[in-house]
């Protein structure tokens, strides 16, 4: 089963994501350059973190106009699982695939630290192996990671079960402590924290099992191999 890792100019977690997909979870992963079309037979798409276009103007906004986004939108419509991590989340939001916006952290600084997520929706292709409200130790690393939605949209998100992850405590001023959301259909998920940095015990100072479930959920959804 093929997973596409989209690479924009300035993506910098693409190689990390690729390593985790292939070496840790045995997916058949493939880099997809932003100017090319997505392969037709792709089973899932991941937009990794980084600084596409140097985060200029606003994180994610320039990449959201990349040619490949048209294909990503088509795939989204078809119900194919799509995950945006960090800058990938910012791009999904700026391209209108997910609601809300990511603003500068309240501290005004880049924040690289470990935190805990709480799973709020375990029905998505990336969370189906979690128990509801399960805790995930995971690192964040972002400067524009404060998720914002207005009150009406927040109500909608709650109603439609679109909040996927929340921080266990206030860290950057996000609306409702939101760390990740999905579209109404649930197949497009965006999250600020970096699961690819947390699945290997060697570099995870807490517990790598919960983060692994994000990838195992995808495995459960699309299967491995041919």
């Amino acid at each position: 089963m093929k997973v596409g890792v989209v690479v924009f100019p300035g993506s910098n977690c693409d190689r990390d994501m690729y390593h985790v997909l292939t070496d840790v979870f045995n997916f058949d992963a493939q880099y997809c350059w932003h100017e090319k079309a997505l392969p037709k037979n792709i089973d899932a798409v991941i937009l990794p973190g980084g600084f596409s276009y140097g985060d200029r103007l606003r994180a994610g906004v320039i990449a959201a106009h990349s040619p490949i986004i048209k294909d990503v939108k088509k795939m989204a419509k078809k119900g194919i699982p799509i995950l945006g991590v960090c800058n990938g989340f910012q791009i999904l939001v700026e391209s209108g695939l997910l609601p809300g916006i990511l603003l500068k952290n309240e501290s005004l600084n880049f924040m690289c630290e470990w935190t805990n997520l709480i799973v709020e929706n375990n029905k998505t292709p990336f969370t189906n192996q979690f128990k509801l409200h399960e805790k995930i130790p995971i690192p964040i690393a972002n400067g524009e990671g404060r998720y914002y939605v207005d009150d009406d949209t927040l109500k909608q998100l709650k109603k439609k079960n679109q909040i996927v992850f929340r921080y266990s405590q206030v860290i950057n001023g996000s609306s409702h402590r939101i760390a990740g959301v999905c579209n109404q259909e649930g197949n497009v998920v965006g999250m600020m924290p970096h699961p690819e940095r947390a699945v290997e015990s060697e570099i995870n100072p807490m517990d790598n099992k919960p983060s692994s479930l994000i990838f195992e959920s995808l495995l459960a959804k699309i299967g491995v191999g041919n």
Partner: protein
Amino acid sequence: MSLESQELAELKSKIGRDPTFTELQIVAAEWSEHCSYKSSKKHLKMLPMKGPLVIHETGYDSGVLDVGDGYVVTAHIESHNHPSAVEPYGGAATGVGGVIRDILSTGTRPIAIFNGLRFGDIEKDQQARWLFKNAVTGIADYGNCLGIPTIGGEVEFDECYQNYALVDVAAIGFGKKENLIKNHAKKDDLVILLGGSTGRDGIGGSQFASDSLESEDRSAVQIPDPFIEKLIIEAILEARNEKLIHAMKDLGGGGLSCAISETADALEIGIEMDVEKVHTRESDMRPDEIMVSESQERMLIITSKAKLKKLQEICKKFRIACSVIGHVTSDNQMHVKKGKKTFANLPTNVVANATLLDLPSKKPLYLETIEEEKKFKAISNYSKTMMKLLASPNIASKIWVYRQYDHEVGIRTVIKPGGDASVLRLDNGKFLSAKIDGNPKQCYINPREGAIGCFEEACRNVVCTGAKPIGMLDHLQFGNPKDPEIFWTFLESLKGLTDFVKYFNIPCVGGKVSLYNETPAGSIKPTPVIGVLGLIDKNPLIPQKITDGDCLVIIGNTKNEMGGSEYFEYINKFIGGKCPSVNFTESKKNMKTVLEIIKNQFLKSAHDCSKGGLAVAVSELCMTNQIGCKISLEKVPGEKLDVDRILFSESHSRYLLVLEKKNLKKLEDMLKKSKVSFKLIGQFRGDKIQFNKGTKSIVDLRVDKAQKTWLNSLKDLILHG
């Protein structure tokens, strides 16, 4: 820019005619201290640079170490002091960019950044605070955008840096040995400039770095563009994989002048180039301006005609400009034209090799009396003194800094910043540990012992993770070398480092000299900064949580060496006293022993004693583990000393080992066998940091209170003044 009169005379006699204006500018850039090392080069030769793991290649700016299984690690250190002192954000950021390109030019992928930051007294001085804050943001914005983790460093404040800044940046690269660029070129190969456009920014930068900071030269301000640097990295690594690069050099100080002349000289070729082919930012630039511009984010590549098209395609993919600016000739001349007209035509060996100086040196007068101590007021409440130290900017946790740096991108960071050295995993299953350290307070009191101390401290930090030191980087930062007293301190430091390198067989794999670091109030203190790389074959010592009943053992002797200590300088406001000195035999024995013990995998953690002495080192263990401890000061091995000295002496070669009680016997047996000086000095339990002497309580501090102060004081100082 200009040459001194005897240099001009020399140039004339070497080329047998008057130089043109453009030639003068080219030579002035290349013969600047920054590019030519004219004051230091003669002496730098004393530092041994060979070793079983060191790989030497023509034309490299970085050191290369063989880490086995076909892999290499590259490393380099640089500073960007002058630019950072006037524009801390851009100066620090472009400093990162520069050292990264040094790593890249060997053909390895940069995998880690270190930064050493020094400013004036941020408690009093708003300017210092501004410099510090913006330098940190500059490094963060640049490194984070590149996706190269900044995994460690150090921060220090001292009045000698008032209105000034030392921003040191080191970088590490990793790659396959077979992918190293073997610099070579032959006649008619193409010379290509790749990356950002050439502009007027940064004109005169290297000269600027070689002058004292009076003439705030505006043109030396450089605007960082990490995005283009990131694209350059990816493009170059792709070109490397396709074997499209015959020779490569990054553009740094001195711009094209240096890159062209040094490359040609190293490869024993000539280069003919046309400034009209250089992609410029402004349309009306003169040939000399193009030649000496220090615009950032540019690389020089030599390749064959046949490979050009492929290289251009890669550049196009990554949307970076790539201009063929000239070609290789066989006449060993650097020939600069504009269209058909010649503006400079010089022998490359003349340009690239300034006449080296042999500057006079003389022991500074102040050193005669510096070791004399003053009588201090007795401390009535040590707990209070401890709190004050934990809050002091030099000792307080640097989490406010390293939290702003993405230190995990690349998913190699096994031990993250916050402890001693940081550790990266490598693709061959081994681990690389690294740390940089400096100590100008000690180097001021004794430039030789001080420099050795920095070296040993960096080794200790690396050893605490279980790594054997395999290479060092030195960065020698001093004031005006023409002052014989300053030059003497430079030589002393260098000699000290050389001794250490020889005794410990840790080769110097790279370095940098930065002179003319002068503030309006005079020269900075001698500030060598030493980086040490260590290799771990199997298991790094990842600190485990300390729990109730765990034992604390100290290795090494505590001596009456208080000179340059935070206790003297911060608490007692006194500069002087005896500088801690490293006993080489003891140091080697302790290092070896600690490494052996770590291999046996029963330690919970190891931590070195440095700034703030035993008291601070123990507190750090308590605070990061949120557990109390009870220490008996009378058990601490070493000279018989007053309690303040036992607590705060910064003697070297000391390690704190934490282990479960059940392993104590095993440890003691090993330590006895290796004949190191050691003692069980206490146990962890409860929620207080307690130092006792006999039955008398000396320090009694709540861990949570101490931790809060230690973690937050730097941030509070920056944010709220």
